[in-house]
C-alpha cells in the first residue's frame, strides 16, 4: 500500500492515486481518480469496477439545505439544536446505521449513545449479525484476504453472488489473483459455488452445487457429519437436492486441499436458521482443521459495515444490539436490534446515521418510525430522511471526507477523499450534537435536583 499522491495538471484537473472505493466490503484501495477541479466532478476512476465507477463518476453534490426540520429548510445549528432536544427528552432512543461512514464518526456515535442511555445497532443486524452471534458461540477460523490470495487452493463460495455484489473479489483475492503459492492463478485453485440457483458467479466455479431452498443447514450438517466420519442416510438427497456422492466428493476435496476457504454470504445469514446456518459453516471450517488448514469468513456488503462491528466491539464489548439504558452496555439481539425495537414500538426516538432503514425495514417498523421523532444524517434525501423530523445533510465519506474504514476481513484502510464539500462530515455533526446534549443534560440534572430539594422541603 503506497501513500496517496495528488498531482495537479494543466487543465485544472488533479489525480488522486491509491484512492479507496467505499462501495462494498472489498474496499479496493488502488483507484486512480481524475478530478476536474473547476467542474467539481470526478471524470475518471481507473481500476474501479462497475459499482465503483457508478459511485465515483455519478457523484454530484446536490444543492440541499444544510438541515430540514419537519421538511422545512433550516440551518445546521438549528438542526443540531432540534436533534439535541429530541435526544435529551427521549427515554429509549435507537441509534441505527453506521455502515456507510467512517470509524471516527462511529466512535462519536457510540459516545453519544452512551451519554443519552440509548440503544445502538448497525446494519450488521440485517446482514451478517447472525454471523456475529454464531462466532460468539462457536468461534471462527479466519484469515485476511491477502493470506487467502497467496495460499488458498480450494475456494468455496456459499450463498453469495460476489460477481455482482463484490465484483473485484475474484480478481483481487480469490480466483484469478496471482498469489505467492498460487502463481498460476485459477489453474492453481479449485473453485466451488454452492447456491440455491445459478448466479453470475456460477460460471467462474469448477464445481456448482445446487442446494434446495431452505436446506443449507441440512447440507452443512451432513458435510460436518461426513468430515467427522459419521454415517449420513442416503435419503439426504431428498431433503437437500444434493446426492451423497457429491457430498463425499466435496468432503474429500476439502480434507485433501492445502488451504481451504469458505466464503459465505447472506444466503446463509439471512435465511431460515440464520445464526445456526452461520454457526454450521464456521464449525465445518473448524472441523476441517483436523485434516488441513481451513477458514470460513463472511462476505460483507456495505463499505464500512465491518468497521461498525469493530468500533462498537472495542467501545462496548459487543458488536451490535447494545443497550445503555442502565448506564452499562447490555447485548441482546432480538431485544435491542433496530428492526425489532421499531416493529414492537419500543423506541421513542431514533437517530439514523448513514443508512436507510425506511427503504428496507418491515412495514411495522416503518410505521413506528413515522410516529416518533427521527433524526437522519445522510448526504441524500433518503426514504428515512423524508419521514424524519430532523434531516441533516452531511458530506460523502470516502469522496469528501477522509478517515478509516474496515475491509470485510477486518483490515483497516485509510480513505483518500478527492473532492471538497460544503456540507459537514458525519463526525462533525455527531460531535456538535454531543456537545449540545451534554449541556442540556447538565441543565436537566440541575433542575431535577432543585425540584427534589423543593419537594423534600415542602
Amino acid at each position, binding site marked *: 500500500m503506497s501513500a496517496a499522491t495528488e498531482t495537479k495538471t494543466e487543465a485544472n484537473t488533479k489525480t488522486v492515486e491509491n484512492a479507496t472505493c467505499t462501495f462494498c466490503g472489498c474496499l479496493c484501495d488502488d483507484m486512480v481518480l481524475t478530478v476536474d477541479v473547476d467542474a467539481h466532478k470526478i471524470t475518471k476512476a481507473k481500476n474501479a469496477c462497475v459499482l465503483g465507477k457508478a459511485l465515483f463518476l455519478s457523484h454530484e453534490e446536490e444543492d440541499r439545505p444544510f438541515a430540514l426540520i419537519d421538511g422545512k429548510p433550516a440551518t445546521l445549528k438549528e438542526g443540531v439544536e432540534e436533534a439535541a432536544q429530541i435526544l435529551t427528552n427521549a*427515554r429509549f432512543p435507537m441509534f441505527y446505521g453506521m455502515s456507510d461512514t467512517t470509524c471516527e464518526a462511529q466512535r462519536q456515535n457510540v459516545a453519544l449513545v452512551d451519554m443519552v442511555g440509548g440503544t445502538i445497532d448497525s446494519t450488521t443486524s440485517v446482514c451478517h449479525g447472525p454471523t456475529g452471534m454464531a462466532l460468539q458461540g462457536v468461534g471462527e477460523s479466519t484469515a485476511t484476504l491477502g493470506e487467502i490470495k497467496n495460499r488458498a487452493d480450494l475456494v468455496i463460495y456459499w450463498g453469495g453472488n460476489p460477481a455482482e455484489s463484490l465484483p473485484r473479489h475474484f480478481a483481487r483475492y480469490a480466483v484469478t489473483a496471482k498469489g505467492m503459492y498460487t502463481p498460476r492463478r485459477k489453474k492453481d485453485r479449485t473453485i466451488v459455488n454452492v447456491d440455491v440457483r445459478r448466479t453470475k458467479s456460477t460460471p467462474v466455479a469448477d464445481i456448482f452445487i445446487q442446494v434446495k431452498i431452505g436446506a443449507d443447514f441440512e447440507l452443512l450438517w*451432513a458435510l460436518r457429519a461426513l468430515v467427522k466420519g459419521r*454415517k449420513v442416510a442416503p435419503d439426504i438427497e431428498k*431433503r437437500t437436492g444434493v446426492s451423497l456422492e457429491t457430498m463425499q466428493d466435496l468432503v474429500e476435496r476439502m480434507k485433501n486441499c492445502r488451504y481451504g476457504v469458505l466464503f459465505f454470504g447472506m444466503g446463509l445469514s439471512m435465511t*431460515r436458521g440464520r445464526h445456526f446456518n452461520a454457526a454450521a459453516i464456521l464449525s465445518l471450517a473448524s472441523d476441517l482443521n483436523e485434516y488441513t488448514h481451513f477458514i470460513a469468513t463472511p462476505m460483507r456488503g456495505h463499505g464500512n459495515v465491518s468497521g461498525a462491528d469493530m468500533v462498537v466491539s472495542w467501545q462496548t464489548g459487543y458488536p451490535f444490539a447494545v443497550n445503555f439504558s442502565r448506564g452499562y452496555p447490555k447485548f441482546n439481539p432480538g431485544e435491542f436490534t433496530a428492526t425489532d425495537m421499531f416493529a414492537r414500538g419500543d423506541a421513542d426516538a431514533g437517530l439514523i446515521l448513514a443508512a436507510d432503514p425506511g427503504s428496507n425495514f418491515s412495514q411495522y417498523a416503518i410505521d413506528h418510525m413515522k410516529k416518533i421523532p427521527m433524526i437522519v444524517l445522510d448526504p441524500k434525501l433518503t426514504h428515512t430522511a423524508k419521514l424524519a423530523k430532523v434531516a441533516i445533510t452531511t458530506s460523502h465519506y470516502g469522496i469528501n471526507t477522509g478517515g478509516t474504514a474496515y475491509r470485510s476481513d477486518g483490515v483497516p484502510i485509510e480513505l483518500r477523499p478527492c473532492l471538497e464539500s460544503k456540507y459537514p462530515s458525519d463526525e462533525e455533526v455527531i460531535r456538535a450534537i454531543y456537545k449540545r446534549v451534554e449541556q442540556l443534560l447538565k441543565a436537566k440534572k440541575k433542575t431535577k435536583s432543585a425540584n427534589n430539594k423543593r419537594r423534600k422541603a415542602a
Partner: protein
Amino acid sequence: MSLKLTLKKKPSVPVEAESICPDVMEGLDLKQIAALPLHHGNEQVTVGDFFKVTGKSNGEIRLEGDTSRFKMVGDSMSRGRILIKGSIGQHVGVHMSGGEIIVAKNASDWVGPEMSGGRIIVKGNAGHMVGCAYRGGQVGVTGGEIIVHGNAGNEIGNTMRDGLIAIGGNSGDFTGVGMLAGTVIVLGKMGWRNGAAMKRGTIVSMEDAEMLPTFTYACSYRPNFLRLYLRHLRDAGLPIKDAWINGSYHRWSGDSIALNRGEALIFDR
C-alpha cells in the same frame, strides 16, 4: 391477602422491573414497596409511579393491568408466587431458582432464561427463546419447570442442562438445540432442525417431525418415564390424551455430530 399491584398508566417505553419479585418485596410496608425502583427506559422511576399498591406483602404478588411492557419480572426469584393477570414482557423469571410465576395471558420472548428451579406457567402463548441461555452463554436452564399452554417460538430449551419445558401447542425451529440434558415436551408440531447439536436430553413430540440427517432411528417403544411426565403435565392442566400416556414412541438418537446421547421421541400414531 396478597400484595396487589394495579397498573395506573401504560409505560411509553419498556420498563425493567426486577423489583417486582417476592424476594425483594417481602417484609416491606406499602410505602416502601411503592418507593422501590423501576427503570423506564433510561430513567429511574418508582413502583408507585406506575402501580397502585394495595394489600399486604405475604410472598404473593398479583399484577393487574396490561403489563406486556414490563420486563424481568421475578428476576432471581427464589420463593413465593407472582400471579400476572394480563400479558407479560420479556425475561419473565430470569435466573429464577424457586417459587412460582403464573401468567394468565401471553408471555414475550425469553421466558425463564437460565433458571435453576421453580415453576413458570404461561396460559397463553410464549415468544422465542423459552428456557434458553443468553447469547454467549454455554448453559441454559439447569432446573425447574416451564409450562406453556399455547404455542412457543424458536429455540425452546437452547442448551438446557436439566429441568422440564412443556409446550401445549406448536413450537418453532431448533427446539432443544444444543441440549446438554433435561426434557422438552411439545404436544403440537415442532418446526425444523430440532435437537441440532444436542449432546444428551430428551425431546418429545406428539406430531410427526422431520429429523436432521445426523439422527438415526433406533426403535419404537413405550418409555415408562414418559407416563410419569405426562401424568404430571395433566395435573398441571395440559390436555394430555390417554393415547399419549399408553402409546408407543419412535426413538431417534442424535446428534451424531455432538455426543449422540440425546433422543427424540416421536409419538407413533
